[in-house]
Structures are given as C-alpha cells and as structure tokens.
C-alpha cells in the first residue's frame, strides 16, 4: 500500500455513504485534497481522510430536516429509523412531561394494576408453583388417616400404626414421623428457662427430605431408640447463631430441655427452617430436633389410641402414588384385623407433599389472582381510555404533522413510544408496589403461609412484570395509534380540536368505561359477599366468653411427674388458689388446650347396649382435661348435670362431661346420656377405664366460629393429668394488667416454672378468623382500587365529552336551553354508561360469585342485600364522577364557546 493513496477501508465506506449523483465528484474532491495533504505529511493526510469518513457517518446519523443530497436512500432510510426512534422517545418524554396530570394518572393506574398482580402472582408462585425446597420433591408424600369413603376429614396416625406401615411398605425409601413439642431450654447463667420449639422426629426424617447437617452429624438409628443412653439433639441454624454465637465447639456440649440433658451432635443448614405448613412440616420453624423415641415424645407413643404423629415419606424412584396407595391399603387392612377397635371407616390417605402444602391456600390464592386480574384489566382499560382521550384531543396536532409529511408508520411509532414509556414507568412503579405489598403480607402473616417469608419479587416475576407492562403498552398503544393514523386531514385541521373525536372513537371510550364499571361491579360484589360473611361469622357465639381472659402456657418439667401425678395436680391446685387471691382476678383455671384449639382426639366405646343412632363414624371425641373452675372462667355454660369439683380427685369415681355435639352424635333424642359411661382402651394405664357422664355443656367452636364443633369430652384434671396446661385467668379489668402478678405467683410456687405464650383469649379467637379477615381485606382493597380507577375513567370520559361538545352546548344555550337542561344531558349520559356497566357486571357476578361459595358463610352467592348495596354504592360514585363535568358544562358562556372556534 502506497503512502499517497487514501486508506482503503475509509475509501470503501465513503463510496457506500455517498449518493450516486455526488459519489464521483465527492470522492474526486476528497482524493484531490488528500493528495495535497499527503505531500506535506502522509500520515496526517490519512488521519484526515479517516476523519472525513467519520464525519460522513455522523452526518448520516444526525437527524436533519433535509438529508444531504448525496446519501444513498437505503442507508438514509435506516439512519432515519434509528435517529427517529431516539427522537420518538425524546419527543414522547417531552410530551408526557408537558401533560403531568395525564401522565400521573396513567402511571398510577398502571402501577396499581401491575403492582397488585405481581404481588399476588409472587405469592402464588412461592406457594403453588415453586417445588418444595427439598431434594426430588416430587417423590415426597404425606400419609394421614381419613375416611375410606372419601368424606372430608383427616387425622394423624398413632405411632404403632406408623411403625406397621413403615415395616410393611416396600414402595418407600423412607417413611418418617414427626411431632412438635415446646420444651423449656435452661440457660447456664441461672436465668429462667426459655420456651423453644422442638421437632421430635424419627431418625430417617432428614434423609427422607435430603437435608444434611452443616456441622456435626445427623441422627442415626441408634440415636432414635428408647433408653439409648443420653439423648442427642440437632440445633437449627438460627438457634445455633442466636444462642450459641455460631460457635463450632457446640458439638458434644450438653443442653437441658425441661431439665433433661441432651448432647448436641449437629447443626442444620441455614436455608432450612423446617417450616412448611399444610401438614408437611410444622408451620412454625423448630429450634431443636430430637430423636422421637428417646425424648419427651416417647411418653405414650406405644398406644394405638393416641393419634399424634405426622408421617412424611419418600417414594422409591418409579413407584407411583397409586401403587403406594395400594400397598398401604393392604397394610391398613392387616392392622385393622389385628386391632379392630375404633377403626370403622378409617383408611390411609396418601397425597403428594407439594399438594398437601399448597392445599390450605390454593383456592384462596386462585380467587385472589382472579380478582387481581380483573383489577389489571380495569387498569388497562383505564389507560387505554386515557390515551384515547388524549389522542383525540391532539387530533389536530397529529393531522398537521401528517400534512407536513409524517408517515402513517411514523405516527404509529410515535404513539407507541409514548405508550411504551408509560408502561415502563408504570412497570417500575408497579414493581415498587409489588415489593412493598409482598413485604407487608409476609410481615402481617397473610393467610399464615410460612413460606411467604422466603417470597421476593425475583427475576422470573420481574420478567412476568415486564411482559405485563409491554402487553399493556401494546393494548393501550396500538388502538389509538391506528386510529390516529387515519385522520381526515382536512377536516381535522380546519375544525381544530372539537370536531375530531367522531362517533367511533367516542364509542370506543364509552365502551371501555362500561367495561370498567362492569369489572368493578364484579369485584365489589365479591368484596361485599366476603365482608358480609365475615360479619355473619363474627356474630356467632363462640361458645365461651373471650373478653377479659388472659391465657398462658405452663408445661411442667418431667420431675413433677410421679406415678399418680399427685405432685403436679397438687402444684396446679396451689398455683390456681394463689392466682385467684390476686387483686383484679375473678377466677382462675387450667386446661389442656385453649378453647380456640381443637388439640387431640381420643377414641372410646360407649358402655352398655349400642345407642340406636347410626354409627358409621369412629367414636372419637376431643380430649380435654380441665380444672374445676374451667367452665366458670372460660364462660362455657352448663346445660344439664353438674360441673367438676375438687372432690373429683384421682381417688374418686371417674367422671366426664360431654358437649352437645357429643350428645347429638352418639345419642338419639330418647336416650339419656347422663349416667352412661365411656370406656377407654389402654389410654390411661393408672386407673379404671370407665368414665361416667355427669354433665352436658354447650358447644365451643374450637377451630373458629364458622367451623362445626366436633364431639368433645372434658375430664377432671386430677383424673386425667397432662404436663402441658394452659392457664385461663378472668380479670375484672384489662387482663394485660395481670401478667406480672401471675408470673410472680407462678415463681412463688416454683421458681423454675416457665410461663410463656401469654395472650388474651380475645386475640386468640380473632386469630382463628384471620384468614377470613385477610381474604375479605384483600378483596375489599382490590375492589376499592377498582372503584377508584373506574371513577377516574367515568370522570375522564365525561370531562372529555363536555370539552368536545362545548360549542354544541353554547349553541343550545344561545337557542334557549337552560343550564339545567345541559346538566341533565351530561348527567344522563354518564349515568347511562354507569347503569349499562352495572347491569353487565351484576349479570356476570351471579355466575362468577359462585367461585367464592367455599369462602362464604351463611350467605348465598346471590345475596340480595350485597347486590343492592353495590348498586347504590356504584351509583353514588357514578353520580359524583359525572357531577363535576356536568357542573362544568353549565358554566359555559355561549358567547365564549362560539368564539372559541
């Protein structure tokens, strides 16, 4: 290559960049000048030549009103598109900035729609779509007992039954059992013990889940054996961190739980909390893991009548759920042949762990997702309507630009750029809303979903969000852009703003408003039905008097247990007497389980000739030892017979009090339950198995007010003592004032007694309603948002209509119409739209509200008061949204409006 020829690549590019007409002359000029320069300094001449090339490219990319004449048209076109896009976006940004009210409204609308949808989707994804956080979660299954004929209702297994299943089932790699306990953890410095949660597990539970320890070892079969020497324990990662400062030397150390020593052998990994819920694993994360057969749980696990273990299994690869069910059914039949007592209609129920975990909330989440999708639809129609209105108002601007040579494609792109920008802004704001919503829901323990704590708006959901944004942009952008791109140019320019919105675009916007109101009606009906259900539920008498009662848990350490439990019974007597003497206390009692917790059930036989009522149900009842003052303190009314007294001691004849549900279930009207006896199996080894019914009390709604009350049996605590008891103290005033004096009284009786989980009965009762409350609140929030958006929609359309028809109104006024006539016209139009939307919405609500029927209580999906209220409410909102533009229409001065041409 010679030094006095121009650089070849630059020359080649310049050739392509120059228009054919000018190519020869331009290149000639460049060559001529290059030659002159090259004579002085060839290197600098080549640099100069390359600079010329760069300038040619820069010229090409700079948008100019007139392109350089010598640029070839194809390149010029490409350059124009590129430059045009930048220009479009800049133009769109400027245009959005200049109409702040419109932009704010549109972005807010999109943000609400996108944010709410993403939040609900995030939760849905975490709970329903994401697999359980275990190795090969597809092979994990849950085994419970249920009715073989498919009636609803499931219960836990007894440990001996579990062992039989485990021994016989070939289709499982592991079949593990767990139950939860809450022992007191003693500290070294003599401070009172702290109540922690322990998960007592068979040794193969962790291998079944595929979880390994991060420190030390997991349980081995020899750990999980009765009387296998000093029991061992695993620590959760958080307990290890918070209580032991993440000290690795914790291995081999001894911890005391309820006074009994355990050797720490390992620490579980940080990501694994063990909280899943839905009967897969407990809903609250355990702090320690203990071997089931060598811990507290070992008490009584040999009894077939005590159903208290949850069973989780891992199928062998290739074994289907059906095969496993078949196998378990044959084992169940063998067990039933050997131990037929109380097994009528009972059979094993096997389900996948994923289904079991999602089941309690699946329906609710799908309904919420449906509701939030409606909200998103409303948001989209609202933005579409806003953009349409704006496009119509800018008809003249577009017409002029079209007349000046802006192509149809260019105008569409322009409009799309604006929509895209709106969608992106709305998406960003929506992401923020979604993030805050998910956080708030997790903190408020929304629907009690433990896995919500791990939910975060992750990248997958962000992708979903972007897709929603872009889809929205497409929906709201293309329609107006298409319409804008075929304006009747001459008329549009001549007539200015007012006449541009012809019949069809007005119709489009009005249809959108109708659609919005219909959707909002649907949501309002849903919210109304749920709120009315909640109110119905709250009106139900729970069967006890929750006000002014303080509750606390008191689990006796093992050393209080002697063969006949006299020490522990005596301890409770002394403690309750002391508490009752405290100022401000009306009465005090203790019970195994609170009235808001169904606890465990027990099976039994009714003595004597079999009662005449059909008895396909296994005779089973809630098991509830209470101290004599319990019924008075909790406010449970006695219907017949007597309550317990101090004379019902361990040495006295055995007695039991049953509830009305028990009488309804196991006796018919002609039979007298009082005086009959219940016969228990080997449940209580220390005394006679027969208990005489001495009283009948009213039903307590153990699982929340709307749940049916199962049969229940109350026992004198002295005759059926248990270690885990709840104190119930009725106060004269605020029950919280008693907390300190009750603690003081407890430690005066025995300083090592831990009092924990203090709460008022009222709070606990409210908690049983919390899921119903959460759902009603969420749907009500969605409905309120929908209503707000629809009101904006109606207002926007009507305000625009008034603006459009200013001239017409002016003429009418000039011709003698009164202001009231004009106002009536506008109001009439707005209310007609609202009425049409309302009718469509109500029509759709009748079938759609059926999906809610599972959540409704004593209310039909076609509840007339709800529908009436929705009509009135929406009507009122429609009136307000229309009234403002209607009033503006009456302020029109005919002279001004006619001159405004």
């Amino acid at each position: 290559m010679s030094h006095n020829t121009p650089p070849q690549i630059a020359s080649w590019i310049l050739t392509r960049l120059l228009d054919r007409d000018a190519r020869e002359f331009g290149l000639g000029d460049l060559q001529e000048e290059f030659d002159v320069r090259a004579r002085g300094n060839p290197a600098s001449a080549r640099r100069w030549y390359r600079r010329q090339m760069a300038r040619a490219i820069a010229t090409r990319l700079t948008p100019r009103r007139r392109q350089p004449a010598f640029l070839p048209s194809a390149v010029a076109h490409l350059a124009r598109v590129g430059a045009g896009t930048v220009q479009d976006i800049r133009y769109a940004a400027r245009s959005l900035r200049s109409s702040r009210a419109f932009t704010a409204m549109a972005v807010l609308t999109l943000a609400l729609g996108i944010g709410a949808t993403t939040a609900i989707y995030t939760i849905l994804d975490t709970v329903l779509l994401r697999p359980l956080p275990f190795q090969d979660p597809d092979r994990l299954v849950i085994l419970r007992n249920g009715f073989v004929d498919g009636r609803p209702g499931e219960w836990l297994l007894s440990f001996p039954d579990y062992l039989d299943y485990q021994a016989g089932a070939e289709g499982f790699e592991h079949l593990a059992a767990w139950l939860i306990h809450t022992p007191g953890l003693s500290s070294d410095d003599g401070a009172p013990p702290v109540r922690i949660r322990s998960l007592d597990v068979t040794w193969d539970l962790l291998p079944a889940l595929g979880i390994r320890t991060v420190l030390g070892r997991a349980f081995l079969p020899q750990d999980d054996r009765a009387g296998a020497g000093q029991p061992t324990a695993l620590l959760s990662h958080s307990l290890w961190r918070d209580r032991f400062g993440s000290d690795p030397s914790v291995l081999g150390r001894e911890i005391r739980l309820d006074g009994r020593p355990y050797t720490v052998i390992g620490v579980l990994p940080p990501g694994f909390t063990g909280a899943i819920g839905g009967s897969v694993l407990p809903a609250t994360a355990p702090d320690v893991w203990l071997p089931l057969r060598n811990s507290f749980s070992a008490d009584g696990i040999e009894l077939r009548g005590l159903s208290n273990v949850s069973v989780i299994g891992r199928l062998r690869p290739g074994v289907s759920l059906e095969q496993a069910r078949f196998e378990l059914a044959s084992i169940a039949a063998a067990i039933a042949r050997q131990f037929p007592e109380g097994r009528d209609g009972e059979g094993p129920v096997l389900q996948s762990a994923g289904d079991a975990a999602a089941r309690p909330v699946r329906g609710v989440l799908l309904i919420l997702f449906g509701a939030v999708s409606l909200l998103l639809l409303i948001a989209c129609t609202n933005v579409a309507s806003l953009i349409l209105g704006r496009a119509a108002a800018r008809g003249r601007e577009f017409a002029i630009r079209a007349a000046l040579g802006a192509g149809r494609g260019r105008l569409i792109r322009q409009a799309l750029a604006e929509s895209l920008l709106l969608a992106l802004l709305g998406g960003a704001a929506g992401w923020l809303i979604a993030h805050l919503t998910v956080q708030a829901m997790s903190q408020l323990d929304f629907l009690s979903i433990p896995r919500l704590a791990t939910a975060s708006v992750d990248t997958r959901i962000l992708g979903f969000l972007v897709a929603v944004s872009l889809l929205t942009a497409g929906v709201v952008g293309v329609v107006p852009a298409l319409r804008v791109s075929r304006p009747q140019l001459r008329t549009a320019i001549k007539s200015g703003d007012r006449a541009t919105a012809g019949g069809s675009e007005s119709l489009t916007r009005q249809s959108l408003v109708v659609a919005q109101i219909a959707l909002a009606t649907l949501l309002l009906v849903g919210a109304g039905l749920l709120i009315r259900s909640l109110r119905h539920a709250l009106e139900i008498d729970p069967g006890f008097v929750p006000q002014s009662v303080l509750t606390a848990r008191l689990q006796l350490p093992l050393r209080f247990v002697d063969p006949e439990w006299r020490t522990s019974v005596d301890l409770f007597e002394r403690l309750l007497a002391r508490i009752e003497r405290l100022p401000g206390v009306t009465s005090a009692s203790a019970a195994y389980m609170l009235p808001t917790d169904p606890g465990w059930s027990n099976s039994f036989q009714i003595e004597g000739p079999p009662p005449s009522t059909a008895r396909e149900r296994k005779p089973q009842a809630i098991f509830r030892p209470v101290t004599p003052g319990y019924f008075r303190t909790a406010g449970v009314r006695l219907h017949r017979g007597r309550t317990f007294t101090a004379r019902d001691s361990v040495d006295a004849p055995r007695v039991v009090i049953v509830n009305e549900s028990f009488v309804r279930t196991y006796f018919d009207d002609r039979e007298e339950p009082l005086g009959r006896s219940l016969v228990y199996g080997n449940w209580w080894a220390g005394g006679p198995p027969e208990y005489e019914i001495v009283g009948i009390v009213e039903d307590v709604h153990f699982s929340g007010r709307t749940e049916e009350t199962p049969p229940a049996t109350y026992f004198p605590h002295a005759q059926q003592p248990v270690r885990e008891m709840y104190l119930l103290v009725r106060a004269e005033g605020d029950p919280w004032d008693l907390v300190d004096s009750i603690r003081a009284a407890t430690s005066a009786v025995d300083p090592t007694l831990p009092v924990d989980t203090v709460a008022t009965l009222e709070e606990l009762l409210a908690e049983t309603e919390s899921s119903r409350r959460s759902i009603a609140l969420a749907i009500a929030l969605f409905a309120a948002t929908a209503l707000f958006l629809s009101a904006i929609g109606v207002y926007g359309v009507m305000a625009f209509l008034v603006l459009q028809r200013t001239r017409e109104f002016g003429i009418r006024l000039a011709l003698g119409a009164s202001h009231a006539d004009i106002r009536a016209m506008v109001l009439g139009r707005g209310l007609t739209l609202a009425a049409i939307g309302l009718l469509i919405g109500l029509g759709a609500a009748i079938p759609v509200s059926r999906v809610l029927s599972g959540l409704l209580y004593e209310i039909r999906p076609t509840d007339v008061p709800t529908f009436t209220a929705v009509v009135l409410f929406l009507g009122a909102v429609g009136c307000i949204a229309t009234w403002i533009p209607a009033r503006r229409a009456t302020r029109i001065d005919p002279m001004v409006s006619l001159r405004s041409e």
Partner: protein
Amino acid sequence: MGRALGEFEQMVLLALVRLGDDAYGVRIKEEIERRTGRELFIGAVYTALARLQKSGAVSSRVGEPTAKRGGRRKKFYRLEPAGEVALNRAYAAYREMTSGIEPKLESMGTSRGSS
C-alpha cells in the same frame, strides 16, 4: 429566489464569486476554510450547493476526467442571476447594518485580547 440566505450559503456563494470558472467542490471548501479558518466537511458543501441549485441560485456542469483525481470528473458550479440578486441583497443588508459602526465592530473582542 425569495428567501434570505443562510450564513453558510452566503459563504458558498461568495466563494463562487472569488473562484470564477474554477469553482468545484474541494476549491470552494478550501476557499472558505482558508479565509474563515474553520474546517469543513465536503458533504456540508455539497448539501449547501444542492440546496442553492434547487432554489436556482447556482447551476452546475460536469468537467472532464483528470488523472490527478484518480480519473474522476469534477462538478463545476456557477452563480446564477437569482443567486446574484440574493447575494447582493444579503450584502446590502449587511452593509446597512454595519455602516458607521465598523470601527466599533472591529475593536470588538480584540480589546479583551485573547492571544
């Protein structure tokens, strides 16, 4: 030619007057560069010339190929009457605006003494 000339168009036309028959792309460019001291891109010169030709201010003819330019031909430009009128009008306006204040204009900027 009804409209007023832009500044760069004026310079291109003035260069044509100076160059006479030898007015083609690179010459025009050099003439303006030498006298104003600013560097131009040849494309800008052609753009202005195309615009001027469209409005009738200049006309062009294609010359013979020369070896010096790699065998490429030149395109010569000539001032047309419409261009002369426009240039004259621009010059008159400029003169009217500057008459009597020349000393002042010339002292402007220099008093601050850049270099």
